[in-house]
């Protein structure tokens, strides 16, 4: 198994990668190239940030930085919505806590909250090792609605 492998369709893409933070960088880069080709009407910074949070959570909290475990990120572009699924090989983690707004002076625990803040619907399977993100193309980010 390669440390990072990419599967392409016309409007879909998936990346499998070993659970290291360096591979998160490589996977995000590959996904952002695909996003630019799809001309998705999101600010690239926002989408890259959300991808980084989702993949870093899977690597760090899901697979516990075990390079022998893989993370898969599948991205599907439909007519008016982007859907992203991130699957890790861990036992799951306390994702409910991750979705809460942390204390302002807390250095950690912002990943899931940021994904929501940038307008994505965030759902996990009950075990906490499959994350589904979706965002309609006309959905504003939370901070822009207030």
């Amino acid at each position: 198994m390669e440390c990072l492998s990419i599967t392409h369709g016309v409007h879909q893409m998936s990346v499998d990668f070993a659970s290291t933070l360096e591979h998160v960088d490589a996977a995000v880069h590959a996904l952002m190239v695909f996003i630019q080709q799809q001309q998705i009407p999101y600010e690239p910074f926002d989408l890259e940030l959300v991808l980084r949070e989702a993949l870093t959570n899977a690597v760090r909290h899901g697979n516990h930085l075990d390079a022998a475990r893989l993370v898969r990120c599948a991205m599907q572009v439909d007519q008016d919505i982007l859907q992203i699924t991130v699957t890790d090989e861990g036992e799951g983690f306390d994702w409910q806590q991750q979705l809460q707004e942390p204390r302002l002076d807390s250095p950690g625990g912002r990943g899931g909250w940021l994904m929501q803040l940038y307008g994505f619907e965030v759902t996990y399977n009950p075990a906490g090792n499959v994350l589904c993100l979706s965002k309609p193309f006309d959905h504003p980010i939370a901070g822009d609605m207030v």
Partner: protein
Amino acid sequence: MSQVVNQADSVVLTPDTDVVASNAQQLRTSLFDLIQSGHSRIVIDLQQVAMLDSAGLGVFIATHNSLKTAGGELRVINVSPNILRLFQLTRLDRRFVVESR
């Protein structure tokens, strides 16, 4: 990864790459070393930074917390419009000084 320049009343640290999970620990160590060596007023110059994630934010918060305890101050300068919005959305611009480019 970072350039460090001493000024009259502060020290300026300028990362030369994005501040994300894969390198946040390196920046954290550099900032910790500055605090340990007695610097209480630290400026982080983000002129070369296009992306900042929650791991990077965590480094800034931890640095601010340490400096505040010591009576010091953190300033983050030359932030891009997208990073400024990130600081505003997370309300961290109310915790320490954040200045746009």
